[in-house]
């Protein structure tokens, strides 16, 4: 049980920036959403790790991660509903093609 805290953080950083990279470069809305899941997971890991290493007597980070998972699920559900609706309307879910609301 002597894994340095920094290792966890390195893993979560790699996940975070991989997610950001995907968010920047993906053209498919679902792929973008997958990248967002990576980002959210990286944060959740950080919550849990900091809770465990720095404040082992309380469970704030733990519950934060728990609620984070719940909210991520909610976000995914709504986002996928929207994407499916868009797909129904324009037969396409490319980020470049969604400009109906643009002035």
């Amino acid at each position, binding site marked *: 049980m002597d894994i340095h805290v920094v290792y966890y953080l390195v893993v979560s950083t790699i996940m975070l920036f991989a997610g950001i990279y995907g*968010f920047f470069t993906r053209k498919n809305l679902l792929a973008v959403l997958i990248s967002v899941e990576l980002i959210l997971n990286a944060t959740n890991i950080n919550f849990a790790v900091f809770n465990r290493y720095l404040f082992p007597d309380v469970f704030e980070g733990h519950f934060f991660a728990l609620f984070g998972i719940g909210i991520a699920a909610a976000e995914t559900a709504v986002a996928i509903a929207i994407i499916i609706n868009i797909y129904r309307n324009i037969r396409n879910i490319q980020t470049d093609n969604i400009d109906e609301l643009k002035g």
Partner: protein
Amino acid sequence: MDFNYTILILLLPMLSFLVLGLAGMRMKHKVAGAIGTTVLGIVAVLSYLTAYLYFSGGRSADGTFAKLMPWNFEWLPFTTNLHIDMGILLDPISVMMLIVISTVSLMVHIYSFGYMKGEVGFQRYYAFLSLFSFSMLGLVVATNIFQMYVFWELVGVSSYLLIGFYYTKPEAIAASKKAFIVTRFADLGFLIGILIYGYYAGTFTFEPEQQLLIAAGGMIPWALGLMFVGGAGKSAMFPLHIWLPDAMEGPTPVSALIHAATMVVAGVYLVARMFPIFIVYAPEVLHWIAYLGVLTAFYAAAVACVQTDIKRVLAFSTISQIAFMVVALGVCIGADTHEGLGYMAGMFHLFTHAMFKALLFLGAGAIIHAVHSNEMSAMGGLRKYMPITHITFLIACLAIAGIPPFSGFFSKDEILAACFQFSPVVGWMMSLIAGMTAFYMFRLYYGIFWGKENKELHAHHTPHEAPVSMSFPLIFLAAVTCVAGFIPFGHFVSSNGQSYDIHLDAQVAITSVCIAIVAIALATIMYLKEQQPIADRLAATFKTLHRAAYRRFYMDEIWMFVTKKIIFRCISTPLAWWDRHVIDQFFNFSAWSAQAAADEVRGMQSGRIQTYCIWFLAGALVFTLMLLLI
């Protein structure tokens, strides 16, 4: 005594203007005219009541009439000391002006019923007359110089509107623009004068603190002189007189009201209003004003002798007579009743002149109404057709010529006496000009009512006497002209407010009457008959002079030369070049650079959220780096 009701004198014409201006076009002509006239009638009654109450109210302990301010409220506060007020000031000259304005205005309102009958824009005409009455009344009761300025400009605007009443006539438009521009140009001087005065005196009222004026020293004469520039513009003093003859393009009753009796004496009124300061702090300016007045009087009289358009003759006569008043004010050498005789004389002449000059203009209007022409050649022998106009016109001519017992004699005599008191040269000059006045007025009189009848013009349209609405004002004003001279004017108005008995200076009176009679006789010899050999021969002998006088000594051409050739070409053109090529180009450049920069920036505004996010993250990183490194 309570003078609170005097606010109605201002508010009623204003109200009438609003009603007629906004709703007038939906009214019948008669209704609109009746509204305007009734309002003016009420105003006149209120003015007479005010005058009666004011002058019967008795004098204060030092023998002057008290200055009353029934209304005065702060309009624009600048500092605790310097603020612009609006209000009503009652003192002898403002009450006197109230009477003059309301009387003449009422007469003109009645007269216009006949004169303007059936004209397009009849309601508009009455609306403008109401506006003018409102502004002129506001001008004379001003409690401070700035209120006076505000109403001064309003008067200018209404004058502009009325001169250009026949806005389909190019001459009328040109004349109205000319009047407006010339007087505006002069008003610039007025405004600068007011600002200098306000800065040094620390107030806009007419009674600043003595110490401040003394401390201001040399600036007060400048301020007063500049104010007089504005007055000279309004009162058509040489060389700013050029607008007044052209202003005759307006309807004749307007000429009677604005360009003979009331507005053009605003300059005189201004000098009279500032007189207590003038006489103490800037007597030399006052005397320069007098010299300018002599020049103007002489110039205008000389031009009037050869004009053939009867309204032009009357216009130049007006310029000349206003110059008389200005001279009268200018020749005062002290503030007490004797040394300041000219003040009383000038105001007296203002009063009498307003009446008989309005009468002359209204008479001329009746004549023009009858023969449909302004030119003397279209007239002649009209005395048979228009007896009332003839008699009243004659009375006015006698009054302006200075024949007793008509009013002009008394006031002009006082002016001449004041001039002789100042300097014999000025006195003799003014006597000569008075003689010229008599000459040209009777030339006009004979040209209209005697002399050769223009048969072919009368063949299909016999001239007839004007309707009652037009002849009543003539008779009324003629009656006033007959009796106004016997008003003990010195009791009411004098330079320091003390009562003053007018006593005729026998020497001056006899001289001036003799000169007038000689001039009238000369005019009778030259112009009474159908053939006018002497006049024609004189005109032929002094051809150049006659021509020059007929062309008003080329003053208009000189002004055109100054403005077009000198100001436009030497100042305006380079300025325009600078404006177009430097200032405009500078702004063009800034607009172009903004556009070019925007064009560059526009590329970033792709509407793609992912690109924005890259920028966002980059920005966040830059800030983090800054936090780390600093």
